[in-house]
C-alpha cells in the first residue's frame, strides 16, 4: 500500500467507481423512501463519494467502507422449517443423552450386581456392638460423669493390652514373686470363673423348657424357705422380707388354686388315678405341693434347730472345697477351650518346635528347657500347660532332635520330656494322626526299624542314595586317576555332576512313583519294578540273616518282572505273595488228605483253566473292532463309464475318487489287552449333551468347568452353598417397588464418593 501511488491503475480505478455508483443506485432502490426521510442526519453514500477528491487516499476509504459494511447487522433469513426441526431435534437428543447418560453407571452396576434387594433404598439397619457404643460414649449426665470419674481413676481396669490391672501390679510389687504368681493365678482363675458363670447364667436364662423352670422354681422356693428359717433367729428384719415373699406365693396359690386340682391336667390324671399308681402319685404330689404353698411360715419353729444344724455343716465344709472345685472347673474348661482349635494347636506346636530346635542346638539341661518353654508360652503355672499337647508336634520334635543331633545320646533326650522316653509310642501316635495310610506305615517302620515288608521307606532310601553316591564317586575317582590326572582334576566336578544328577533324577522319579502309589495313585506298568527296588532297599537294610530265602524270592520275582513287563501277560502277574491261611473246607475237602487235595486242585484248574483265554478274547475284540468300525461311503456307480457285471470291480482310480473314507478314530481300548470297550455306548449320552455352547461362554472348557462345579448342599459348606445359589433379585412381599429416585440416588452417590475420597486423603 505504501507504494500505492506508483502502481496506480487507471482502469481498475474506473471500474471501482462504476461499481460504487451501481451500489449506490441499488441501495437506493432497496431502501426506497425510508432512507430518504428517516436518515436525515445519517451519512449518505454521496457524502462519501463527495469526499473523494483524489484517488490517492482511496484505499483508506475502502477499508472504512468494508468495516461499516460488516458492522451493519442484518438478520439472516430464517431457515427452512425442516432444517430448523432437525437442529432442534439434534440439540434435544444431545441433552437427553447427557441426562440419561448419568444413569449409565448405576444401571451397569445394577445389572452386574450379584443380588438386588428391592425396595432399593431401604435404610441400613445395623446393631451397634457394645464396643462401638462404648467408644462413642461421652459422659453427660452428672451420674455418668461421676461414674466415669470413678471408673477412669479406678485401678481395677483391665485392658486387653495388659494382662494385669494397676491394682494387681501394685500388689505384685509388694509381694514376693512366688506369692505374686500364685495370687495372679488365683485372680485370673476367679476372673475366668466369673465369665463362665456369667455365660452359664446367660445360657440358663434362655432355656425354654417348662419342666426345667418348674424344677427351678421349686428349688428356689426351697432355698427361700431355708433362708427364711435361717434368718429367723439371726436377723428377724431380713426374715420378715423373706416371709413377705413367701406370703405372696401363699396368697397367689390361695387365690388361683392352681395346684389344687382344678386344671385340665389334673382332671385328666384323675381319670387314670384309680388304675394307675403313678398317676395317683403324681396327683398326690401336686396336692402336697399345694398344701406346702398354702401353709403359713414362721409359725412352727420346732424344726428350725434341726434344719439349722443340718444346713450349717455343709456350708462350713465347702468353703475350702468349693475353691478346689472351682479351680478344677477352670482347668477342665480351659482344656476344653484349648482343644477344639487344631489350627491354633498346630501353630502353637510349630512355635514350640522352633523353640525346641534352637534349644537343642545349644546344650541346655532338661529343667532349664522346661522353664524356658514355659516362659516362652507366657504360662505362669504348670497347670496351664494343656495336658493334651499335640501329638504331631511332639513327634516332630523327636524327629528334629534325631536329625539335628545324631551324636547326642538318647538318655539326654529321654530326660527332656517324659514323652520322649518312648519313641515308639510317639511314632504310633503319629501314625494315627498322619493322613495317608501308607505314609503312616512308612514313618512307623522307619522308626521301629523292623520293616518286615519291602515297603519304600524314605529314610532307607536316603541311606541308599548316599551310599550309592559314595560308591559312584569312588569309582569315578579311580577311573580318573587311571587316566591323565592333571586334565581330569579340572574336569572332575563338571563330569561328576551330570552323572550324579542323572542318577538323582532317576531315583527321584522312582521315589515319586512309589510315593504316588502311597497316595493311591495308580501305577500299572511299573508296578513290579518298583516293588523290586523297594525290596532291594529293604533287604540291604535288614542284613544278611535270611538272605538266601530272599534271593530265591528275588529270582522268582525276576521271572515275575518279565511277565509284568509284557502287558499281555497280565493274567499271570502277581503283586506279592500273600501269607496263605488255608480254610478248613468242611464240606468239600475234609475227607481228602494233602496229596489228594493237590490232585483235586489240579483237576479243578484243568477243568476251568482255558489254555489261551487271552487269544480267544483277542479274536472277540477283533470282531468287535470290525463291527464297530465306521463304514466308508461308496459313491461309485457301476457301469458308469465302465463295464459292469459280475466279477468286474470298480477301478482303483474310480474308487479313489468316489469312495469317501470314514474318519478313523482311535479305539479307546487299543492299548489295553483283554479289554473291549464299546464305542457305540457313548451315543446314548450324546443325545442328551449340549450341542451348542450357551451365551456368555466362548470356550467349551470354561462352560464345562462351570457346569461341573457343584453348588448343592451335599458337596459344599452351607455358607458357600448359599452364596452360590442366592437369587438375583430379592423382593419384599407386599413392598412397593418404586422407580429409582433420581435425587436420592445421586445424592447418595455424591456423598459416598466424597466420603471415599476423604477416606483416601485421611489414609494418605
Amino acid at each position, binding site marked *: 500500500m505504501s507504494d500505492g501511488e506508483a502502481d496506480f491503475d487507471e482502469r481498475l480505478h474506473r471500474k471501482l467507481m462504476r461499481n460504487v455508483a451501481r451500489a449506490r443506485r441499488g441501495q437506493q432502490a432497496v431502501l426506497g423512501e425510508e432512507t430518504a426521510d428517516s436518515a436525515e442526519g445519517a451519512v449518505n453514500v454521496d457524502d462519501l463519494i463527495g469526499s473523494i477528491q483524489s484517488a490517492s487516499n482511496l484505499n483508506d476509504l475502502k477499508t472504512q467502507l468494508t468495516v461499516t459494511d460488516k458492522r451493519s447487522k442484518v438478520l439472516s433469513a430464517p431457515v427452512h422449517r425442516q432444517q430448523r426441526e432437525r437442529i432442534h431435534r439434534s440439540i434435544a437428543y444431545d441433552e437427553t443423552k447427557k441426562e440419561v447418560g448419568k444413569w449409565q453407571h448405576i444401571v451397569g452396576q445394577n445389572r*452386574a450386581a450379584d443380588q438386588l434387594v428391592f425396595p432399593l433404598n431401604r435404610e441400613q439397619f445395623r446393631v451397634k456392638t457394645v464396643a462401638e457404643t462404648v467408644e462413642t460414649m461421652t459422659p453427660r449426665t452428672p451420674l455418668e460423669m461421676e461414674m466415669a470419674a470413678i*471408673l477412669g481413676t479406678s485401678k481395677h481396669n483391665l485392658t486387653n*493390652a495388659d494382662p494385669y490391672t494397676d491394682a494387681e501390679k501394685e500388689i505384685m510389687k509388694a509381694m514376693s514373686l512366688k506369692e505374686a504368681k500364685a495370687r495372679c493365678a488365683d485372680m485370673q482363675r476367679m476372673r475366668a470363673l466369673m465369665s463362665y458363670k456369667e455365660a452359664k447364667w446367660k445360657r440358663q436364662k434362655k432355656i425354654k423348657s417348662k419342666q426345667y423352670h418348674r424344677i427351678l422354681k421349686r428349688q428356689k422356693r426351697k432355698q427361700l424357705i431355708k433362708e427364711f428359717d435361717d434368718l429367723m433367729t439371726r436377723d428377724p428384719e431380713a426374715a420378715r422380707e423373706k416371709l413377705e415373699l413367701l406370703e405372696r406365693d401363699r396368697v397367689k396359690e390361695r387365690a388361683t388354686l392352681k395346684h389344687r386340682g382344678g386344671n385340665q391336667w389334673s382332671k385328666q390324671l384323675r381319670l387314670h388315678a384309680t388304675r394307675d399308681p403313678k398317676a395317683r402319685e403324681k396327683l398326690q404330689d401336686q396336692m402336697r405341693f399345694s398344701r406346702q404353698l398354702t401353709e403359713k411360715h414362721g409359725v412352727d419353729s420346732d424344726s428350725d434347730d434341726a434344719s439349722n444344724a443340718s444346713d450349717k455343716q455343709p456350708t462350713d465344709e465347702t468353703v475350702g472345697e468349693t475353691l478346689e472345685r472351682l479351680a478344677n472347673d477352670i482347668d477342665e474348661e480351659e482344656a476344653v477351650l484349648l482343644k477344639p482349635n487344631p489350627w491354633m494347636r498346630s501353630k502353637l506346636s510349630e512355635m514350640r518346635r522352633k523353640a525346641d530346635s534352637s534349644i537343642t542346638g545349644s546344650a541346655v539341661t532338661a529343667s532349664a528347657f522346661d522353664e524356658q518353654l514355659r516362659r516362652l508360652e507366657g504360662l505362669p503355672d504348670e497347670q496351664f500347660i494343656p495336658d493334651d499337647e499335640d501329638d504331631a508336634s511332639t513327634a516332630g520334635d523327636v524327629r528334629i532332635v534325631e536329625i539335628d543331633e545324631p551324636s547326642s545320646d538318647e538318655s539326654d533326650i529321654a530326660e527332656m520330656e517324659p514323652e520322649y522316653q518312648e519313641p515308639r509310642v510317639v511314632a504310633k501316635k503319629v501314625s494315627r494322626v498322619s493322613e495317608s*495310610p501308607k505314609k503312616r506305615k512308612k514313618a512307623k517302620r522307619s522308626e521301629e526299624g523292623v520293616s518286615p515288608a519291602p515297603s519304600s521307606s524314605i529314610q532307607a532310601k536316603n541311606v541308599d542314595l548316599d551310599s550309592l553316591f559314595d560308591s559312584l564317586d569312588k569309582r569315578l575317582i579311580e577311573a580318573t586317576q587311571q587316566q591323565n590326572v592333571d586334565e581330569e582334576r579340572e574336569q572332575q566336578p563338571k563330569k561328576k555332576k551330570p552323572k550324579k544328577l542323572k542318577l538323582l533324577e532317576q531315583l527321584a522319579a522312582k521315589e515319586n512313583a512309589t510315593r504316588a502309589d502311597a497316595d493311591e495313585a495308580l501305577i500299572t506298568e511299573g508296578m513290579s519294578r518298583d516293588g523290586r527296588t523297594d525290596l532291594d532297599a529293604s533287604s540291604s537294610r535288614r542284613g544278611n540273616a535270611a538272605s538266601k530265602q530272599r534271593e530265591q524270592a528275588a529270582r522268582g520275582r525276576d521271572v515275575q518282572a518279565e511277565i509284568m513287563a509284557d502287558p499281555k501277560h497280565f493274567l499271570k502277574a502277581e503283586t506279592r505273595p500273600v501269607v496263605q491261611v*488255608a480254610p478248613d473246607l468242611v464240606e468239600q475237602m475234609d475227607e481228602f488228605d494233602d496229596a489228594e487235595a493237590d490232585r483235586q486242585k489240579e483237576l479243578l484248574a484243568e477243568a*476251568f483253566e482255558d489254555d489261551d483265554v487271552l487269544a480267544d478274547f483277542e479274536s472277540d475284540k477283533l470282531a468287535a473292532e470290525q463291527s464297530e468300525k465306521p463304514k466308508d461311503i461308496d459313491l461309485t456307480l457301476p457301469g458308469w463309464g465302465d463295464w459292469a457285471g459280475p466279477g468286474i470291480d470298480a477301478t482303483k482310480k474310480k474308487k479313489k475318487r468316489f469312495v469317501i473314507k470314514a474318519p478313523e478314530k482311535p479305539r479307546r481300548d487299543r492299548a489295553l489287552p483283554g479289554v473291549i470297550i464299546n464305542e457305540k*455306548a457313548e451315543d446314548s449320552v450324546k443325545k442328551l449333551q449340549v450341542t*451348542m*455352547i450357551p451365551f456368555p461362554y466362548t470356550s467349551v472348557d*470354561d462352560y464345562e468347568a462351570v457346569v461341573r462345579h457343584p453348588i448343592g448342599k451335599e458337596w459344599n459348606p452351607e455358607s458357600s452353598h448359599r452364596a452360590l445359589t442366592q437369587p438375583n433379585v430379592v423382593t419384599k412381599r407386599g413392598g412397593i417397588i418404586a422407580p429409582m429416585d433420581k435425587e436420592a440416588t445421586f445424592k447418595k452417590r455424591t456423598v459416598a464418593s466424597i466420603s471415599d475420597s476423604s477416606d483416601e486423603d485421611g489414609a494418605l
Partner: protein
Amino acid sequence: MKSAKPRYFTGGAANETGSVKKVEATRGESTSEGAISAIRPKDEATGAAPPFPQKKRPRSDPADDPFIGDAPISEEKLKKYDMGAKNLRPATAKTKLAQKKFERRKEKMLERCKQAARAEILLSEEQGFLEPENGELTHHVRQREIASAVDISSATKHFDLDLAKFGPYRVDYTRNGRHLLIGGKRGHVAAFDWMTKRLHCETNVMEGVRDVQWLHVETMFAVAQKKWTYIYDNAGVELHCLKQLNDIKRLEFLPYHFLLAAGSNTSYLHWLDVSIGKIVTSFPTKLGPLDVMTQNPSNAIIHCGHPNGVVTLWSPNVKEPLVRMLAHSSGIRGVAVDQTGTYMATTGMDRKLRIWDVRQFKQVHAYKLPLGLSHVTFSQRKVLACAVGNTVQIFKDAHVGLAEAPYLVHQCTGTVTDLRFSPFEDVLGVGHQNGFTSLIVPGAGEPNLDALEANPYQSKRQRREHEVKALLDKIQPELITLEADDIAKVNTEALEAELERKAKVLYLKPEKIDYTPRHRMKGKSSAAKKEHRKQGVFEKHRKVANQERREVEKEFFGQKKAEADKPKSVLDRFKRKDV
C-alpha cells in the same frame, strides 16, 4: 509371647513367603493404629470429664497376634476341591457385562473351594486299626479277643446267628448301616435293627430265596425268590409280586436312580424303577446265568462276572456290554467295586484276587489266595474281605499292593455265601451255610458320616423327609454312563458338525425343492391357483434359507455398521437394504 514372636516370623523356609506377607500386613495396620492413638490425647487435653475406660479390641494390636489372618490352606487340598475354577477365563465371555458376571462367579467358585477345604477340619474322626505288637500278627487275633478288648457296645457288634436249618444266607445292610436283612436259601427271611437286635419281621416265604435287597428305605425290601421277585414291607407283608423279574439270581439297588437291577438265571438283566413300578429296560445278556453281580456306587453301572473269566459292565441304555474285561483265566467268583468307583476287586476260580482300576480298566494288583476263594467285597475305607471256603479273610491296603498277610481271618461254621460290610461301622456281615455272623473289623467303616447322605441315627420324620428329597433328586436312568460327568460335557462332535454346516451355508445355493400342489376341488386347482400355491411354498423356503444365511453372515463377518449421522433422504426408502 514376645520371645516367641520373632521366631515365628523367621520360621522355616517352608512358610517364609507366607510370613513375609503377614509382616507387611501388620505394618499397614499398625500405622493406622498409630494415627488413632495420636489423636486421642487431644480429648484429654480439652479438660472434659475423663472418658470411660475402654477395652481395647482384640484386633487392635496385630503385632502381638501370632495368628494373623485366616488359617493357611494347603495347595493340595484346594486342588482336591477345585473342579477347574482356577483356569476359568472370564475375559473370554462375550459381552462386558457377562465378563463382569463371570468374574464374580469365578471368585465365588474359588471361595467355595477354599471353604470346602477348610471344612475338612470338621471331619475329625479317624479310623483305627489293630496295631500288632512286635512279632505278633493281626490275623492271629480272634474275634473273641477283639470283642473282649473293646467297649461293651462295640463288643455287642460281634454276634452269631445259628440258623443251620435254613441254609446258606444272603445278607444286606441299609445304606445307613442300621438295618440288616438276611435271607436263607430255604425261605427264611428276617429284617432287623442289628445294633439293638430289634426284629422287624421274620417270615418263611415257603420258596427258595436267591437274594435279598433293601430298597431306598428300611421299610421295604426285595426278595428274589425261586420263581418271582417280591417286595415286602418291614412287617413282612407282601407288597408286590414282580412277575417280570422271574428266576432272578442277584439283586442290586441303585439308590439315586431308584432302580432295582436284577440278573436272572436266564441271562436277562432287568432294571425296574421302584418309584413308578415299571421296567426301564430288560434284555438278555446271552452270557449265561448272572450269579456274580455288583454295582459301581459312583456311576451306577452294573458289573457282572461270567464263567469264562470275563467281567462285563452294563448300563440300562445300551443292550450290549459297555466294557468286556478279561479278568481271570477261569470263572469269576466275586466282583466288588469300592465306594469311589476307583477300584474293582475280582476273584476267580484260578485262586487269584485281582485289583483293577475301573476308570482305566487296568489291573493294578494281583494276589494268590488259597483254594476256595469266592466272594469279595470292599468296605467304605477300602478294606477288602474275601470268602475262602469257610473262612473270611480280610485284607488291608490290598488296593495299593501292600497286603502281605490277611489283616484278619475268621473261620465260620459253614461255607461263606455272602459278605457285606456295614456302612459307617467297623462291622462285616457274613452269610454262610449255617447262619449269619457279624464280625468286628477295626478300621473298615467310614468314621465321618454325612447325615445329608445317609444318617444312621435318623428318626422316622427324617426318614420320610429323606425319602421325599431323594425322590425329588431322582436321576433318570438315561443318565447312567461310564463316566458320571459325561452329562455335563458338550457334545463336541455335534458342535463341530454344526459349525461346519453353518460355514457351508454361506456358499450354498438354497436347495431346490420339488413340490407339486395337491389337487383341490371347487375350482381351487386352476393352473394359476396351483402356480400361486407353489410359489408360496418356494417363497417360504427361500425365506428360511435367506434368514439362516444372514444369521451365519452376521456370526462370521460381524454386523455391518449402520451409516450413522447421515441425514436420511426421503428417497432412502427405495434403496436396497441387503446390499
